[in-house]
């Protein structure tokens, strides 16, 4: 579904992403792991149109979409979340979700002025959908709370919720489990599985929690210093000496016990 073909991004002298190539298969939950500074977030930024690649191609369904604006990619079904939650702090949790659905009639000035009935009907449908997502994520209790006041974990859920407010095809999750307690983590894992099976979302997930990666992801791609180091099943990855070395020499340990420590 997505082909990352020799993609690079340099920041001055830093090669954040350096000649990176791999595929995200349709229907898969692909894991993306690697020590801090490996270039994972930068790669997501390029896939979602927030950062322009210095070189390389990004194919979505065979079409090169490198350098497309974020909203264009969104309309092609590609949605991302942020490592650090980006909520609309002064808007309610509900509004944070209601803003998302694309092509709302009431987003057009002319329609808002002359087709108010239609705008209102659509608003009802959007609200119903947002309420469903809130229920699914157990956020109904904070429905009318300002999003800026939610806990870190709830903001993570809200990030995920945003991807559920559109008919996404590919969802890029940047550390959905970071700073989230065990119960919430189990919930997020369940939500991702459900979306993958029921709605057919393709996922690519950056995560440091190896339990979560092992449970959800196949295949797993390992990045280090901007490059793809290895890929395969979690069992294969764990045995790969290069991976072990990258982690030992790097900041985190691929073993579950200390997996959540880094961010």
């Amino acid at each position, binding site marked *: 579904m997505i082909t990352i073909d020799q993609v690079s991004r340099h920041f001055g002298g830093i090669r954040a992403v350096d000649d990176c190539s791999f595929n995200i298969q349709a229907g898969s939950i692909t894991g993306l792991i690697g020590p801090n500074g490996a270039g994972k977030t930068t790669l997501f930024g390029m896939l979602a149109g927030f950062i322009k690649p210095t070189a390389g191609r990004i194919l979505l369904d065979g079409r090169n979409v490198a350098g497309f604006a974020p*909203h264009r990619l*969104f309309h092609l079904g590609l949605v991302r979340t942020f490592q650090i939650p980006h909520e*609309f702090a*002064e808007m309610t949790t509900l509004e944070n979700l209601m*803003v998302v659905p694309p092509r*709302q009639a009431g*987003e057009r000035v002319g329609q808002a*002025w002359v087709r108010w009935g239609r705008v209102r009907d659509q*608003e009802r449908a959007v609200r119903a959908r947002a309420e469903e997502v809130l229920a699914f994520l157990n956020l109904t209790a904070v429905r009318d709370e300002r999003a800026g006041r939610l806990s870190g974990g709830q903001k993570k859920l809200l990030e995920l919720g*945003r991807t559920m407010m559109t008919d996404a095809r590919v969802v890029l999750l940047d550390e959905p489990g970071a700073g989230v307690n065990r119960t919430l983590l189990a919930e997020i894992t369940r939500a991702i599985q459900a979306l993958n099976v029921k709605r057919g979302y393709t996922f690519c997930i950056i995560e440091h929690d190896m339990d979560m990666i092992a449970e959800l992801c196949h295949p797993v791609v390992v990045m280090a210093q901007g490059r793809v180091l290895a890929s395969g099943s979690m069992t294969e990855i764990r045995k790969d000496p290069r991976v072990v070395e990258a982690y030992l020499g790097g900041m985190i340990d691929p073993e579950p016990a200390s997996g959540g420590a880094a961010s």
Partner: protein
Amino acid sequence: MDGGVGLLNYGIFLATLIGIYGIVTLGLNVQWGYTGMFNLGIGAFFAVGAYITAIATSDPSPSHLGGFGLPTVAGVILAMIGTGLLGLAICLVTITLRTDYLAIATIGIAEIVRLGLKNEGWLTAGVRGIAGIPRPVEGLVPGFDALTYLGVVLAALLLVYLAIERLYRAPWGRVLRAIRENELAAQAAGKNVVQFRIEAFVIGSMAMGLGGALYAHFVTFISPEAFRSEFATFLVWVMLIAGGSGNNRGAVVGAVLIWVIWSGTELITGRLPEDWVTRAGALRVLMIGVLLQVILLTRRQGVLPERPPRPIDE
């Protein structure tokens, strides 16, 4: 000005200007209050609106372009289209730059407009100004021209208020609030941030142009001297911030409050000893500045702070 014989006439005069400033302040609210777009060229949009309708509706004259003797309605519409296009042009020029640069660009436009009004005599009659701008409802109700025109201005204010308030409550306004709060997240939510910003800026500019056009038809004579542009810009900003940025009712309340007080300061400075008279203008601005400080100290978000809109589907 048309005199001010009685208190009533003065009241009508005051109310008309308040209505006009209210429209302009509503325009700024769409730009700044909804969207966070800085405009330091408000006076220029106002002037351009006034001049467009003046040229379009006045009788032919050798001293400036036209006039074309068009109906007032046509002149006002042209004024709005013209200022809308001006707003669009500024957006397109600054589009790739950060929003702070927009502020600088609007200062540039204000300066260009100021010089243009003075120096492009073929177009604007230069410092002589344009006279004989028709008053649209003259003679409609004999003896009550000023009052009828006040009615026109207040009707326009109401229309602009309703149109803009509806946009605020619609998903359109929600997207703008989202952009203002977190641009990256708005992009991640698939919104074409640039397009929404342009729409907001153009709509705001059109309201300012409408205000300028209504002003031209009110005073019937305009000249560069009549537009102390920086000063109009300053007043409108104070109106919005004192009234409540992000709140349309606040914008109107701010216009009423500040204009009344502004007129009041004239009474005060009028009683100053003679050697102070030259400083009267600066003193008035100072007084308004102090007032703004007081309002912001007691009500940080203005008299009527922004509130989330009521749901539209309940």
